[in-house]
């Protein structure tokens, strides 16, 4: 299986969208499982093995902040979009809207 595989291309497209989705939903804080449930409920199920490492990567890029809290006897790591994350979110959102509009036009004109 290579990155040029057609199925992988679809997933590559999805991967960028997941980052945008995560940054947008974490303007309100969530822990990993609650975020996954929220994304799933809104039609974007993200595999567990993708979401948790992604959260950590975004945090290491300082796009998210996190802190551990014990809730109902269970330690949970709560994430929130950082200031840098919000700036990136704004830029990505603008780009996304332009892309959607352009691509819709292209796809309709095919």
């Amino acid at each position: 299986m290579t990155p040029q595989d057609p199925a992988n291309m679809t997933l590559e497209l999805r991967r960028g969208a997941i980052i945008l989705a995560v940054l947008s939903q974490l303007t309100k804080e969530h822990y990993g499982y609650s975020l996954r449930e929220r994304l799933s409920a809104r039609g974007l199920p993200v595999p567990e093995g993708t979401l948790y490492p992604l959260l950590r990567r975004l945090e290491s890029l300082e796009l998210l902040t996190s802190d551990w809290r014990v809730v109902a006897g269970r330690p949970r790591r709560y994430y929130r979009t950082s200031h840098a994350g919000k700036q990136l979110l704004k830029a990505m959102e603008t780009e996304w809207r332009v892309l959607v509009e352009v691509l819709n036009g292209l796809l309709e004109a095919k």
Partner: protein
Amino acid sequence: MDLIERYIQDVSHRLPRRLRGDVEKELRSSLEDALDAHAANAGDGAEAAAPDEHVVELLRKFGPPAQLAASYRSGTGFLVGPELYPAFLKTMKIVIIVIVGIVVASVVAGAIGEDNPLFEIAKGLVLSNLFSEIVEAMGWVVLVFWIVQLVTSSSRVDTPNATRATSMSWDPHTLPRRDDPNRIGRTGLMVEIAIMIALIVLFAVFPRAVGATVSTNGERHWVALMGPGFLAGRGLLYVGFVGTVVLNVMLLRHNRWTIPTRVFDLAISVIFIAALLPMVTGGNVVANAPADLVANGWSEEAADSLSRDMFPFLDKLLRGVFACVIVGIVWSMVTRVVTLIRRVT
């Protein structure tokens, strides 16, 4: 829950140490959340699979440990990936232990002096550039693992379709069983107590019982192997034997290793080294005073012959054995110190 802990430990084992604690904690919390949600759904009347089946299904969704660990590390760049990381670590440990062994051998060689055959062996090891060759070998280990990493990268885990296929075919029941590192073996401890008590009795009450029947010049008599050098170091050996008995009784009482018992165990090893070192470096280990031999029934000629020909050889042999035992103890101490540091951190 055993499967979940095995999964978390397997993932963690493939990650750099600095990531482990945090990833373990978050993974455990997330898996428990998912299981709780499943239990709540089952309570609402939803058709639920058996708990073990659900755990298997859940772990499959998270993906094989190597794959998940790779996701945590992707983007950071690595010479050796998570699939090969445990094997790489094991290989490097062996190389490092060999280096430590050679350093210890050279120290022992320095201590025992040039008239000892061990000095020649140790000098040979050190002077033959083995030390630098082994350091170089560490570099080769990295290179080989890096090449294997490159060669196997066509099946890299970050290709999503391959990932999905691997997840579905992966069976969580194949997760390695991680033995509790603090668990004790009760039978082994009890056998060790019996051996220690037997040695105390043997050395204290029957010191001449350790020996062999020797034939020379047509005479055949018993020769005790515990000479003045051995008997002088006996006191510390007793401390070591008694310490081992006390430690084993403590372990049997608490039923597991703790940090204090691990420290105590290391202290006992130091005592054994302190007891054996004078035997390697000091006076005669084997009983070889001709007068003693004559007193035990040997003729003067035979006593002279034994003292001249056989005892020096036996002496060197026993010193060599003791030196090997010391190296073995130091080797085992290194691994136990590593375990102790892991328990503390």
